[in-house]
Each structure stands twice: as structure tokens, then as C-alpha cells.
């Protein structure tokens, strides 16, 4: 019983390098950014944050929010179906592995390569565009403009769907096969089993994964920039312009944009923690 701090001390020493590293290269930069966003000309001020509400910037947040929400919901729904198809039923192992490894690649795939892949496919000179044009005379690149909001939705789905599938696979795996059998023996129909048992058990991981998809899309920069540049008004692209000095430099306001983005992402990820904590008490 000498002193508890003496015994804890070595522990902190072990965690110190990681803590210092993260402080210098993550926490301090982010802290500096947040402080900057609340200071104008050396004084505390809410002016920069308030400027986020100006129509042009508010619109960027709304567009980014919509893009993230839409791709999270569509990608989430399709990804959920894909996870279901992968997790249940019998199928050859090679097929399972192929889809799984592809999902891993697509969900991790870097933005730039993905953007060019889609330009090669659906761009004006894109292979599929040209093929469809020759066969039917219909110009796909006019209907689906990649450098537009709907084009971005399409391309984002390419990583959102597999990401959802990968996130949901373990959840499907945790559904015990005894549950439907027990429910049927107690008098449940297939529908009642889904509504009463499967859905309540699955919704925390589903909601949590959707929130992750949302945050994932909200912070995405490379894909959007390589595809659309300034043609779609998105927060990450705006921030990019401010950093690279393409627009008039206003350090405090640029920081405010970043702070706004971090607030949205932190809110989504925080909500995810809350949602998933709920289901943790359930597991055996």
C-alpha cells in the first residue's frame, strides 16, 4: 500500500508514446482548428460559425447531408440484402469468397481510382456509354452525369454497398438458428418472427452501420473532387478550395467549415456508439 499512483505510473509510461503521438498529430491540429474557428482578428467571435448559415455554405452542408443520407440509406438497404444473401442459404465457397474479397476491396477502394473507373465506364467517352449509344442511340452520359449530385450518388454507392455488406455480415451470423424455430413452435408466423424477433435484434447493428456509412460519405473528398471538382457544392470540396487557396483566404471561416463538418461526423459516430451499446447487454 505504498501509493496507488506509484503502481499506476508504469502504465501511463506505456501509453505515453501513443498519447503524445496522437496529441501532436491529431488532437492539437484539430484543437487549433476549433479554436481558430471561434476567433476573428485575435478575439473570441461567433462570426465565422454564424457565417456557415449563409445560403451558399448552408447549401453545401445540406447537399453533403443529402448525399450522405441518400447513399447511406440506398447503400444500406442494398448492402443489407447482399449481406443476407451471403450469410444465409447454401452456395459454393468460391462464390462466397469472391464476393467477400470484392466487397473488401470495393469498400476500401481509394477515391481517385474509383472516380476514374467510373469515368471510363459511364463518362462521355466511357465504354458502357459508347456501347449503349451505338446499340440504342441513347446517350447515357447525358442522363447520368457523373459530375453531378446524382452521379456522385451512383459512384458513392459503389463503396457504400459493400461496406454495409461487410459490416452486417457478423450481425447475420449472430442470429441463432434456434430463434426462428423457437418462435414458430410458440405459434409465430414467418412475418411475426421477422417483426418481433429478427428486426428488434438486428436494428442496433443496422442503425449503427447506417450512421457509419453516413459519416463515411460526409467526409469523403477524393472521389467527389476527382469526379465533380467544384460542380457540386459539397463541404469537403469547399474545405479543399480554402486550403489550397483557390478561394479568398479566410482562415477563421475555413476552420469553421471544418468544425462544422467534425460536429456532424462526431454526432453521427456518437449516435452509433449509443445505438450499439443498447444491444451489447443482449448478448449471451
Amino acid at each position, binding site marked *: 500500500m505504498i501509493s496507488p499512483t506509484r503502481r499506476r505510473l508504469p502504465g501511463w509510461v506505456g501509453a505515453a508514446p501513443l498519447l503524445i503521438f496522437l496529441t501532436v498529430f491529431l488532437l492539437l491540429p484539430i484543437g487549433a482548428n476549433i479554436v481558430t474557428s471561434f476567433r476573428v482578428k485575435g478575439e473570441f467571435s461567433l462570426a465565422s460559425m454564424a457565417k456557415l448559415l449563409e445560403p451558399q455554405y448552408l447549401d453545401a452542408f445540406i447537399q453533403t447531408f443529402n448525399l450522405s443520407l441518400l447513399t447511406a440509406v440506398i447503400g444500406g438497404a442494398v448492402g443489407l440484402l447482399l449481406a443476407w444473401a451471403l450469410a444465409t442459404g447454401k452456395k459454393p465457397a468460391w462464390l462466397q469468397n469472391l464476393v467477400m474479397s470484392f466487397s473488401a476491396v470495393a469498400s476500401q477502394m481509394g477515391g481517385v481510382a474509383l472516380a476514374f473507373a467510373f469515368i471510363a465506364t459511364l463518362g462521355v467517352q466511357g465504354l458502357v456509354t459508347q456501347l449503349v449509344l451505338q446499340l440504342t442511340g441513347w446517350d447515357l452520359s447525358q442522363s447520368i452525369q457523373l459530375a453531378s449530385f446524382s452521379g456522385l450518388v451512383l459512384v458513392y454507392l459503389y463503396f457504400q454497398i459493400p461496406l454495409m455488406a461487410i459490416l452486417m455480415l457478423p450481425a447475420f451470423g449472430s442470429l*441463432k438458428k*434456434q*430463434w426462428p*424455430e*423457437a*418462435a*414458430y*413452435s*410458440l*405459434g*409465430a*408466423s414467418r412475418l*411475426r418472427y421477422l417483426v*418481433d*424477433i429478427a428486426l*428488434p*435484434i438486428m436494428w442496433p447493428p443496422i442503425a449503427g452501420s447506417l450512421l457509419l456509412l453516413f459519416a463515411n460519405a460526409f467526409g469523403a473528398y477524393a472521389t467527389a473532387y476527382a469526379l465533380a471538382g467544384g460542380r457540386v457544392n459539397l463541404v469537403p470540396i469547399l474545405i479543399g478550395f480554402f486550403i489550397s487557396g483557390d478561394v479568398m483566404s479566410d482562415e477563421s471561416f475555413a476552420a469553421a467549415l471544418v468544425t462544422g463538418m467534425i460536429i456532424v461526423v462526431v454526432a453521427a459516430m456518437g449516435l452509433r456508439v449509443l445505438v450499439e451499446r443498447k*444491444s451489447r*447487454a*443482449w*448478448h*449471451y
Partner: protein
Amino acid sequence: MTRDSAEVVLSSISKSYAGKKVLDNLDLSMKPGELLALLGPSGCGKTTTLRVLAGMETPDAGSVHIGGADMTHAPVRGRGIGIVFQSYSLFPHMSAAQNVAYGLRLAGASKSRRGARAAELLEMVGLAEHAQKHPGQLSGGQQQRVALARALAIEPRVLLLDEPLSALDAQVRVHLREEIKRIQLQSGTTTLLVTHDQEEALTIGDRVGVMLGGQIEQLGTPEQLYCTPRTAFISEFVGAVNRISATATTGGVQVLGKLLKISNPQTAPASATGLEALVRPEDLVLRADAAGAGIVESAVLRGAHSSIMLDYQGRTLRVDLPTHEAAAFAPACRVSVSVRTGAVLIDSAKTAAPAAAPAPLHHPALGRIA
């Protein structure tokens, strides 16, 4: 709703998976209110039998009748069955009480009735104070009690227990199986228990069916199975036996110098030599005898009874006797051995079969205590 315990009849059930026959023309009937235990090694088809009865598998041939009605192709939920699985069958997002009340909720029972019935059943399984806990907060034994209460809440006509105790600790297992027997007697529900634990089957089954290769090898009371097994497999599966070499003669077999009747004339091998008699350890009698052919090797205390292990003409024999008598046979003592019964089961000789079967015996009918 009155509780009607149903008669169950499975006739000529066959079932194959990918060309492998799991059930082979199986017949099984259960009397109303009885607890029938299906016992067998893994892969013998006992679980498939339960699943066919539950409607979770459709047989390739044969029929399932419950309470006189053909249920062969009825869906699970129309059969009036309650099931307790081996583990993990409770719905994790519902409390114990909600789990128990779920079947009643599906049946449209009022909230107050559901609550009262759930409380009553949780009381019966001794978990009244855990009603609001979720499965994750309950121990394995408690979860199985809740599962039992849940299965009984809908007043099933047939209760199916699919290895309900095999995932539990030994101590909990022994305690809970007695609880199951008590609750089953109390509710009077026709019950099928599937298990690979012979002790469990013999202690709580009204009747026990031993399965092998998709068929029922023998069906009878625990006493019948233990005392008059039809085959060597049954004899060795439901208890410990000694294999002692025997010679066929006219009118029976010669075992340890005594002429005995053959208890299994239908299944016994026809040859006169290369035979072994299967004798239970408590059916052998020891006598201190300086000229005897047996030498005591060790004594194993099992409680009220002890086992004397002895070397008899190069093989080890196990003899069970009351502990207070066992003291007379110290290691290295010379003894003579004889058979107490008038009839034995005969099988062809197995080379180097160990004489003592693994598990100690405790069988209520025989008054044994662990």
C-alpha cells in the same frame, strides 16, 4: 383451454440427407403424459426424430400423428408443441418474463393474463425474482429454466427437449434434470427428451429408447434396458459391464464355471466358441479364497458402493459391492469369482475390450448413490 396430453405416433419414418440415411423406417409411439427419453450416440438420428416430430424436418416417408391427427406436413406452429433447445434459444432482447409470455402474446392473450401466467411459470421453475432480467444476465442453467417455462406457457400437447442439459455444468445438470422430471409430472405433458447421456435418460425417462443407425434398437423402461438389454450394444451403452469369456453348451453357456441361460437367444452368435458373456459389476460375487483365480488390484470408493478391480486370468474385472463389505478385499488378496444371476447376455468376443465401462452407475431403480 384444457391441457390435453396427446398420444404421439411416428410410423415408418425415413429421412436421408444427401444420400445418407439418417432415419430408417423408424416406428415410435408415446403414451399420453409419459416422458420418453431417446438415447443414442451422436449421429444415431435421435435429434432428427425430434425435428421430424416438431415439423422442422419433413420425412421422406412415413407419418406423424399427434393426438390422433395426421401432422406429417403440418407447419411447426400448428402442432401444439413446445421445444427446449440445447442452448441460445431465448430471445436476447426480451426479459425472462417477456420470453415466457411471447407464445401467449401470439395467441392473443390479454396483457394481464400473460403477466400472470408468466409469473406463475417463472415461479414454477424457481426464477420468480429474475423475471425482469435479460438472457445475457442469466446463467446457462437459468436460461434453460426460462426456456422450459416458455415452452410450457403455451400449454403444449407435446413437449420436446433437445439435449436441454448438455451445455450445462455437471452439478447444474443433475439438479435441473430432477426439476424437469418434477415439472413434467406436474404438468402431465407428453414429453420427448433427446439426450446422449445414459444416466440422464435412465433417471428421468418413464421409458427409454436407445437408437442406433436410424432405428430404435430397444425401447423399454429403464429397468428393462438395464437388466435385460436385448443386445450387447445396449448393455454396454446403458451401464458398465464385464466381458467374460464363455463357452456354449447344451442348455446354455458356461461362465465362471456355472451353467447359465442365454438372455438374448435371438441376437446371440451361433458359434460355440469365441464367446463372451456380458455381466454387470454388481452381478459378480467375490469370495476370499487362497486358491482363487482372481487377484485384487485396487478398490475404488464410489459412495455407498465400491468397485473392486481384479485381475482374472489376464483380464481386468470390476465387481461392485456395498462399501462396508469391500474392506474385506485388500489389494493382492486372492479371490474366487462367481455369477449371481441365472441368465447372461452373450456376444462374440471382442479383443482386448476393457472390462470396466467409463461412467459410474447411479440408477434409482437399483438404489445407487453417486
